[in-house]
């Protein structure tokens, strides 16, 4: 299985993993064959990469998925963005980051 950029995917390829967007919405299930229409749909839902079976993508560049716990911290910071200028929001961000960190590590 290889993760490739959506723009490199084409109709006829089948998904080797569920296609989800940044909000973790499940858009297409693993095993679905891509069509022009579904490629357009994935694009409109903000999907940037998809997983395709190895054999179908030999000449296409592989990309790595972005996740894990450093990404969660970064995510939380980008989510709060300029709201942390407020001291109450800064406190909420600080405490929540600790709780989320603990949750992901005990899981």
């Amino acid at each position, binding site marked *: 299985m290889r993760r490739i950029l959506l723009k490199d995917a084409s109709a006829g390829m089948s998904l080797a993993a569920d296609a989800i967007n940044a909000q973790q919405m499940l858009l297409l299930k693993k095993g679905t064959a891509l069509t022009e229409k579904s490629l357009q749909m994935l694009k409109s*839902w903000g999907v940037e990469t998809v997983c395709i079976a190895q054999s179908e993508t030999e000449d296409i560049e592989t990309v790595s998925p972005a996740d894990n716990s450093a990404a969660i911290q970064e*995510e939380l910071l980008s*989510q709060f963005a300029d709201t942390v200028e407020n001291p109450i929001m800064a406190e909420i*961000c600080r*405490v929540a980051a600790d709780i989320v960190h603990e949750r992901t590590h005990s899981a």
Partner: protein
Amino acid sequence: MLNPKLKAMIRRIDDLPTLPRTVFRITEMINNPRSSARDLAQVITDDQVLTARLLRLVNSSFYGFPQRITTITRAIVLLGFDAIRHLLLTTSVFDIFSDRKSELQVAREKLWDHSLGCAVAAKVIGKQIRHDKIEELFVCALLHDIGKIVSMVYAQEDYAAVTRLAAEKNILLFEAEAALLEYTHADIGRLLAERWNLPNMVADVIVYHHTPDQAGPYAKEAAVVHLADIFCRALQLGSGGDHRMPALDTAAWDLLQLDETDIAPMLAEVESGFNDISPFTDAIVTAATA
């Protein structure tokens, strides 16, 4: 401020599940101090689906009663009026979230988690400020994003465009809606609340959860849900379809008269409260689908 597009959408939602009449009758009844467990049981047993589901729930492992409960009266005596109403409302609202027509099941589950997380947070905040209607706060928060479900199911293209814009610009779904559509999930929520005859407090909180300063007589309740929404997003409980944190409305914060040192214990309580309620949600899913 009914724009034609919004009106057209509302016309299409005739088949949206409604809160069963029974739920309102039960709410009225529980508010009446003269109602007995038997009166309440009478109303519930008039609704066969609700009766079956309630019995399945109270016999689920979440409650873990040693003996099988076979009558509604017994369930009411064991759990109490408030717990029963809470249970009925939560299962009814869950039905609205679990409409099987839409393929966006994961998005709906995340929105359900977000709503449930907010409901737990609203209760925690309500307790902290010694609000006298904590159960109502739970319901307000559970329903605050109900307008999003409608867009998700009945205006999929609009909803896709809005979530895309929100992600691209890192803005709130609420702001993306205002920019693209001339209506927001709060407007849809207002129409649903009217249609369902929800109490004024619930309707106003749905409408003003992003703008609590405009909520008039229910400014405090809107402030609670506004803060609950922020808590929930900070703790990453579910997702409301966007990633951006709403700015804290400082007037709302002042109205609640909370202290900065209250934040850490409240957030910890939301986290554990949400974990505690998860088996309850699983029980609801089982009861609804069995």
